[in-house]
């Protein structure tokens, strides 16, 4: 135990307690104009010189395009008392960076921020002591400004003058109190993003832009259907192209490496034409996806329930099948009061694609000390024979460099110590897209051409068709209300796959990487498990009602088969659970003749929850609505506290709807406690909400019995500029509360607010996402 007595270190600091793993003081001018990353081989590092020195911050978290490294830089600069321009945020690299697990779940500021705050406070304390010794004064006489320690007599020293890695070669104690919030000068300000100038002026900053010496280009030819097997292959035409280095076939994994990218693309087309596949239908009937989800083999678990009164109407029934009923079936359990009515409704979301703008990519370099391993140019080689201990370097936009390394080691039967994974920014991923899969693709191709770095970039069709999807689900809500319409008991029941098949999520199962499942002897990636509700759950995320209902029960039916691979998509199950629960709550409010805002407030006890609902209503002009309501218009509200533990969020949506729904305006109120960077937080909330509008109105993965058919932007359309609503975000004051994760908080409430607004406009409850003309008309006709 390194921690000081009575101190509990944040989890990622407890797991990586050495101060020097998080922070390094670097004296002297450092040539690096971009204040983030910079040590990417093949990337560009250029720019000015920082007089004096810098501090390198090595977080285990990675930049996913939402500015988290800028926020973490602010935290570090604040505690160290250095200018933001002196902080270099380093990319996560296995073997060097602390292992903070995945950058996911809106936890980076909450956890990495908490770790860095203690690390930097302690580092400042240690350097302060060194400065006091150097200057011969007591610590309390020193001032610290932009890294300089000043004595009363005008003498000064600095982090850079004192720089000594041994000072931080010790375990964190947590014994150096961080600054009080009242002393912050940098945290809480809207510092501009450190990475944007490069990214907006075309400098190479993305994984796609890596161009190390000797780079060659790989492409993978995917099967034409799920579960299809490669039974014949003619490589002649592909190998005939000048510049083709090799073709790799391993079971049903098929790829090509060429000197030039355009040649790799042409060769992949020729390989595709020369491949013979055995294909058969494996997917369910897309027209009855809800029927499949409810009927497939599943493991049923009660995720949460109140201990009181399991004999109430709703909770006593294992499955409520009736349509909305107007009266109670059974008598009144005394503690809950008299049941006036019972209600039930079923909601559905389809599979959703991450649909990153930049298709997944990775670059890999294999080096073998055994030259026998080099493949003959122009002949098919077996990429699986990775004996003689090749070393592998991989550059990836993965969300977890250590987890990817471990899964690559498992898939390739290598020692993790022989693999280095370096994070390089990709396009926004919004969860587990094809990033990790592309890393294995690149590794397999690189092992076939040792000594040559190989870059793989997925096609758009592969990104939309083969990356993991957000899981489809059916959610059934049921409730009993008292004669005044107040909820007495509430039941939330979910059918669908679990939400994470990330690398490392199933160490006992086959490697959870696409190519591993296609290689000879490979097996399908296994269906996802359900993480504990204490960690936010997966399918069950936000299924526990945030309202003070006297009784509730949450049941999950986790599918034991996974026809389409699913994995983490921003907010996991919270998107459909909040859509369903907040829609259902509006149905109860309507049945009771109550206003949706008033109805929510009457069931909400948490003052912070009440405050965001009230703020969103006030700011949107909820009460003025009847006076300004336009023809065909409706408004609606949705509320959730993400994961029941992160930021609070209420959204009011205003829509117009005839049969096509258009969202005109979103008013969003968020309480995230301490906000490191208000502009960045507002940007992230607005972005999440707009993405949720796109999911809610337009998005649905389409498939036939063989494979995914929505593999272009025409068949998987997303929201366009002209369709984007006005968005107004209000961040409530932190009031001394700790920072809460914000990145996913708007997803569910936005969907619910839109669904409720559509009901307000049309008088029709559309319970099937997306709210397309097709589904609106179907609801009208139901």
């Amino acid at each position, binding site marked *: 135990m390194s921690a000081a007595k009575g101190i509990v270190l944040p989890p990622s600091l407890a797991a990586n307690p050495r101060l020097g793993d998080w922070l390094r003081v670097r004296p002297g001018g450092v040539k690096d104009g971009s204040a983030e990353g910079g040590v990417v081989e093949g990337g560009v590092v250029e720019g000015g010189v920082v007089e004096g020195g810098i501090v390198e911050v090595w977080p285990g978290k990675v930049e996913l395009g939402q500015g988290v490294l800028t926020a973490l830089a602010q935290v570090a600069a604040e505690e160290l008392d250095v200018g933001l321009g002196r902080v270099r945020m380093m990319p996560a690299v296995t073997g060097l960076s602390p292992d903070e697990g995945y950058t996911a779940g809106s936890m980076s500021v909450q956890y990495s921020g908490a770790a860095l705050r203690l690390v930097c406070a302690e580092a400042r304390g240690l350097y302060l002591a060194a400065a006091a010794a150097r200057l011969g004064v007591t610590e309390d006489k020193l001032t610290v400004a932009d890294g300089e320690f000043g004595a009363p007599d005008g003498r000064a020293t600095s982090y850079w003058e004192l720089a000594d890695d041994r000072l931080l070669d010790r375990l964190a104690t947590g014994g150096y109190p961080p600054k009080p919030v009242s002393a912050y000068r940098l945290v809480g300000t809207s510092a501009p993003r450190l990475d944007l100038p490069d990214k*907006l002026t*075309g400098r190479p900053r993305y994984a796609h832009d890596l161009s190390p010496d000797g780079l060659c280009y790989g492409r993978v030819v995917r099967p034409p259907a799920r579960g299809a097997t490669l039974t014949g292959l003619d490589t002649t035409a592909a190998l005939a192209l000048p510049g083709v280095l090799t073709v790799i076939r391993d079971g049903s994994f098929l790829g090509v490496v060429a000197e030039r990218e355009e040649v790799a693309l042409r060769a992949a087309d020729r390989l595709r034409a020369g491949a013979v596949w055995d294909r058969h239908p494996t997917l369910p009937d897309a027209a009855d996806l809800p029927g499949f989800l409810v009927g497939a083999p599943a493991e049923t678990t009660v995720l949460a329930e109140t201990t009181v009164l399991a004999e109430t109407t709703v909770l006593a029934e294992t499955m409520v099948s009736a349509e909305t009923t107007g009266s109670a079936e059974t008598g009144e359990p005394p503690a809950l009061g008299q049941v006036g009515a019972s209600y039930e409704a079923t909601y559905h979301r389809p599979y959703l694609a991450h649909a990153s703008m*930049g298709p997944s990519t990775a670059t890999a370099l294999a080096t073998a000390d055994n030259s026998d391993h080099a493949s003959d140019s122009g002949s098919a080689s077996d990429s699986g024979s990775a004996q003689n201990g090749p070393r592998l370097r991989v550059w990836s936009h993965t969300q977890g460099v250590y987890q990817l390394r471990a899964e690559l080691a498992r898939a390739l039967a290598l020692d993790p110590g022989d693999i280095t994974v370096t994070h390089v920014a990709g396009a*926004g991923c919004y969860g587990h897209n094809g990033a990790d899969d592309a890393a294995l693709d690149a590794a397999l191709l690189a092992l076939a051409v040792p000594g040559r770095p190989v870059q793989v970039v997925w096609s758009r069709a592969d990104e939309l068709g083969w990356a993991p999807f957000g899981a489809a689900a059916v959610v059934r809500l049921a409730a009993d209300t008292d004669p005044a319409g107040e909820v007495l008991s509430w039941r939330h029941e979910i059918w669908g796959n679990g939400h994470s098949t990330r690398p490392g999520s199933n160490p006992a199962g086959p490697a959870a990487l696409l190519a591993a499942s296609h290689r000879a002897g490979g097996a399908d990636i296994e269906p996802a498990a359900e993480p504990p509700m204490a960690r936010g759950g997966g399918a069950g995320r936000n299924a526990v009602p945030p309202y003070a209902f006297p009784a509730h029960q949450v049941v999950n039916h986790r599918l034991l088969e996974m026809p389409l691979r699913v994995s983490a998509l921003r907010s996991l199950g919270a998107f459909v659970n909040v859509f369903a629960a907040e829609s259902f709550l509006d149905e109860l409010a309507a049945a009771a003749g109550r206003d949706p805002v008033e109805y929510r407030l009457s069931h909400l006890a948490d003052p912070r929850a009440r405050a965001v609902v009230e703020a969103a209503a006030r700011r949107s002009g909820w009460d003025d609505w009847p006076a300004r309501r336009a023809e065909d218009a409706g408004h609606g509200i949705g509320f959730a506290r993400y994961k029941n533990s992160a930021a609070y969020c209420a959204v009011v949506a205003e829509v117009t709807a005839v049969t096509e729904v258009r969202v005109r305006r979103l008013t969003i109120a968020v309480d995230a406690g301490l906000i490191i960077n208000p502009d960045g937080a507002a940007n992230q909330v607005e972005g999440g909400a707009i993405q949720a509008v796109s999911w809610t109105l337009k998005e649905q993965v389409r498939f036939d019995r063989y494979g995914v058919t929505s593999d272009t932007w025409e068949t998987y359309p997303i929201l366009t500029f*002209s369709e984007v609503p006005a968005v107004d975000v209000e961040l409530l004051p932190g009031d001394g509360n700790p920072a809460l994760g914000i990145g996913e908080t708007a997803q569910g409430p936005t969907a619910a607010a839109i669904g409720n607004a559509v009901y307000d406009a049309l008088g029709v409850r559309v319970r099937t996402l997306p709210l397309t003309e097709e589904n609106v008309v179907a609801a009208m006709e139901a």
Partner: protein
Amino acid sequence: MEDERGGAPVTVLVNGQRREVRTEPDTALLYVLRNHLGLKGTRFGCGLGLCGACLVLVDGQPAYSCDMPLWAVRDKEITTVEGLGMAGQPHPVTKALIAGQAAQCGYCLSGVIIAAAALLKRNPDPSDEEVRGALDGNLCRCGSHNRIVRAVLAAAAELRAGPQDRAHL
């Protein structure tokens, strides 16, 4: 004519410079820009001209470079995001995007900058709706749309206020 890497010499005119590359005439312009010329600002998004990440100006008009064969731009003037501003001076749209922090991941923005620059050249005073219409061919997944529109309108205002900046276009 061919070496082991394949291809034949072709000359292209990019950002005011004549450059020779070795490739095939049907190679998409995107790969020539990114790999042969090292201009990584133009990005691959879909390969079908549907997302706008790969937009460049061809003789001043926005064009998708991902499905534009090299033979189609022979003797035409190609401008990439790197060539839009003056030396050391980003284009006013770029400056406005940075000033407005109008991005999250940033991947789509090279194409947005090209489309917006072309819009402001033909319409120096666009409405909010006109900006959105001009950017409907550019997809953004992060939800930065409203900030981008505000930045483009701010750049338009700056350009109208300072006629000397017209040289940027």
